[in-house]
């Protein structure tokens, strides 16, 4: 393997992007197209990870990593599964009202872990479905069927039901207890959910739902950066994997004379500045080592290290600058910042390679690592295996940086444009 320092940016990115793409080939069930949530033994499928996989296949084709026919085959088997699997109120279905349960059994495709019917994860799946529908546009039996299945899946989703009589969508629903009672206020990864919900050709969200959601926004000046605050870094990435928000503005962003792309850029600067301040004295944090987000962690424990009592967390929504923060860095979140702040993301990647060679040896980045827990390995604690969401966002964001492929595909998708306009976006490529 060539030393990262000797590689060009393009070579380095290609290496990490291809390694991330490999996850979807390895964790694929050829019978139903499902993809495992993580590479850990016994992991169920995550519908959001399938959404990422469906979006990544076109990248693989364009990069020459798989053939178009193979990509279409993988896509079609998944779309057939989601079209034909059981939708019902029963606890062991695959979905209900057109939405799907968050986690499904890899083999049977039935709900596992008593997981919720997830609005946002269904949205990420749907984003992949629509990306596939745009990419596989040829007049062949399999590509025609991909588009038919995609349309049927979208039309079946009952977004109005998901509001449960409120102005905004609920976060989820369970057959045992009904709609979830979580607070889901403030800026989040849900922008694409509202865009696709508003554009639904069959059960669209009400016009005022986007305004009701954005009413909970917080525009803050933190470390002299003004931005629409959200703590975990992934929030500033996920909708952006499919929608190019540069130059298009909704009412809120017109008022603030900014856009969501620039906003993600500022959020990344805040992350970098937080790491540079390193208020809690965590090992490794600095100008070139940042990236705090929702992800795996060392597990709940309290320890005394470096003259401080510290509390470590398991899988948690870590955030900047209010925390929680236990010294766990998510390298995928840093690298996925590439389209917004390429110089920062690339220098972080090179830093990871140079300082934490054990972690980056296979060119595939783990969900998290924590150098403060130095006793757990040469690079401190490192998350076991790999998470599909991390690998998916990496493939898409690196590709958007390199070629803009996914953004261009989704600009062609009429639903994206319609949903953005209904949400009040104007300008830029929407003209």
């Amino acid at each position, binding site marked *: 393997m060539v030393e990262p320092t000797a590689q060009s940016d393009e070579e380095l990115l290609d290496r990490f992007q291809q390694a991330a793409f490999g996850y979807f080939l390895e964790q694929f069930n050829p019978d139903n197209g499902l993809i495992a949530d993580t590479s850990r033994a016994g992991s169920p499928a995550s519908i959001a990870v399938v959404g990422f996989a469906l979006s990544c296949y076109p990248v693989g084709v364009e990069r020459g990593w798989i053939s178009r026919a193979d990509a279409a085959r993988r896509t079609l088997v998944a779309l057939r599964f989601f079209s034909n699997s059981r939708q019902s109120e029963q606890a062991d279905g695959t979905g209900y009202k057109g939405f799907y349960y968050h986690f499904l059994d890899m083999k049977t495709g039935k709900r596992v872990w*008593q997981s919720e019917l997830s609005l946002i994860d269904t949205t990420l799946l749907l984003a992949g479905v629509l990306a596939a529908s745009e990419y596989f546009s040829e007049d062949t039996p399999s590509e025609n069927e991909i588009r038919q299945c995609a349309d049927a899946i979208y039309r079946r989703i009952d977004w109005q039901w998901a509001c449960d009589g409120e102005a905004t969508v609920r976060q989820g629903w*369970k057959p*045992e*207890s009904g709609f*979830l*009672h*979580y*607070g889901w*206020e*403030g800026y989040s990864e849900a922008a694409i959910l509202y865009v696709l919900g508003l554009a639904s050709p069959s059960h669209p969200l009400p016009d005022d739902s986007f305004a009701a959601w954005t*009413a*909970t*926004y*917080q*525009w*803050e*000046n*933190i470390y*002299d950066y*003004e931005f629409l605050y959200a*703590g975990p870094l992934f929030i500033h990435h996920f909708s952006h994997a499919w929608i190019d928000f540069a130059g298009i503005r909704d009412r809120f962003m017109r*008022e*603030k004379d900014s856009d969501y792309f620039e906003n993600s850029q500022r959020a990344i600067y805040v992350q970098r500045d937080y790491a540079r*301040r390193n*208020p*809690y004295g965590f090992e490794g944090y600095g100008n070139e080592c940042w990236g705090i987000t929702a992800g795996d962690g060392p597990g709940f424990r*309290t320890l*005394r290290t470096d*003259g*401080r*009592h510290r*509390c470590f967390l398991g899988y948690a929504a870590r955030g900047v*600058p*209010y*925390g*929680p923060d236990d010294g766990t860095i998510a390298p995928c979140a840093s690298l996925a910042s590439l389209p917004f702040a390429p110089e920062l993301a690339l220098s972080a990647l090179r830093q990871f390679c140079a300082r934490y060679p054990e972690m980056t040896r296979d060119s595939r980045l783990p969900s998290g690592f924590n150098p403060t827990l130095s006793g757990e390995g040469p690079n401190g604690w490192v998350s076991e295996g790999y998470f599909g969401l991390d690998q998916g966002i990496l493939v898409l964001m690196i590709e958007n940086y390199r070629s803009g492929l996914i953004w261009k595909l989704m600009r062609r998708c009429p639903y994206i444009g319609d949903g953005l306009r209904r949400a009040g976006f104007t300008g830029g490529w929407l003209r």
Partner: protein
Amino acid sequence: MQHDETLSTSAPDNRFNRALMENVHPPAWRNPDPADMYNLVIIGAGPAGLVAARSAAALGAKVALIERGLIGGDCLNSGCVPSKAIIRTSRLYAEMRTADDFGAQTPEGIRVDFPCVMERMRRVRSRISRADTAQRLSENGVAVFFGEARFVGPRAIMVEGDTLRFKKALIATGSRPTTPRIPGLAETGYLTNESVFDLTALPRRLLVIGGGPLGCELAQSFRRLGSQVIIAQDEPMFLPGEERDAAQILSDALARDGVEIHLNTTAVAVRREGANTVVDLVSEDNMISVSVDEIVTGIGRAPNVENIDMEVAGVQYDTDSGILVNDYLQTTNRRIYAAGDVCLTHKFTHTADASARIVVQNALFLGRQRFSALTIPWCTYTHPEIAHVGLYIREAREKGIPVKTFTVLMHDVDRAITDGEDEGFVKIHVRDGTDRILGATIVAKHAGEMINGLSLAITSGIGLRALAQVIHAYPTQAEAIKMAADAYCRTRLTPARKSLARLWLAR
């Protein structure tokens, strides 16, 4: 509100409590002979009633003050004062356990002497009670009556057989804890945020039902005193209505202290199993049962509107929201006013105080002061403390006001760093494009002290530009407020202004 003429029956009989009783409800007290007519008769000698009585009497009014329980109300006897005394001791224990974080030796074998903690609380309470004793009020011209008050007409109140006639009256009967309707809870027994201060032994396992300010304060302080504490909150976050970042920091702090947190969780049944109290907690589709020694609940407050025959005086009320008042705090009987918890949404001592001052002006001196014009701060006294004043962001946006928040993290404040108290933030919300302060939230070890500067700014119409001109002593934690004002000033340095400055300097 205390209904008995003494502290509750479970309160220990010791010198501090006896001294307290001498001050707040002397056993040998004899009600005075009533005057023919009073300028102001006040029902309830809690914070609102006391403030009104003192200030009206000082201005020369003939005032009668009626109390059925203890002078000082909840705040002194079973609320703010005892809870803050216990919080102080619990903070000390928490600091002892983490002394090595401060470069000090952590004492070995730290043992909590709970009776000692409660003894100090009673000593503190007894001392503070000296400020407003029945005797002293009487010496200051307030006719103090102990007993149950009842309206006997639109301008008369009966107490212990005496009829007190008034030109104006003030109802300040306060509120009491409400308990959730959980099957088995009443039979099994529970503590409220009032009776918890009568405990003589530390519960080994404690369940706190409710994650509002009182629930969070009690959960954290009892955990720090050594109880195993579980807190069940039926909302997705603590302190509903507070800013979510503040609630998140509090949640993290409670978890760090070792409080077992159950959000989105409802207690659905309580039963006795041997020596244990077993509570079923339901979260979505999961149910768990926990065994505890004590339950603390009583997280809501209900206004004390019963048994004073307000109907006779034509005063309308609701058993949930309390006495109906207009913005001048007049009831539906224009001669009768209300103040404090019995009529207000924000049930705080300082709000009761402020409302009572309005009543004295409006009732006795033809004042037209409006309650809605007040700027009311509040604070939850956890560690870190969470304080707020003015509008929240969502309230501003609901009113169509464009809002921008200037945030300073306490980890950027030198004094917070030197004190090892660098968790939290100061957020100041301004109308976007201006320096007008709409509201502020502070999360910091001393947030309750710091918020006062911002209350002053809002009340006086001082904007961030002016605040930036105020020299703050260095190093202090309140300097965070000036740092936020400085951040605002930096946003005024537009590229055009910078270019002009460069041109000037290069001349």
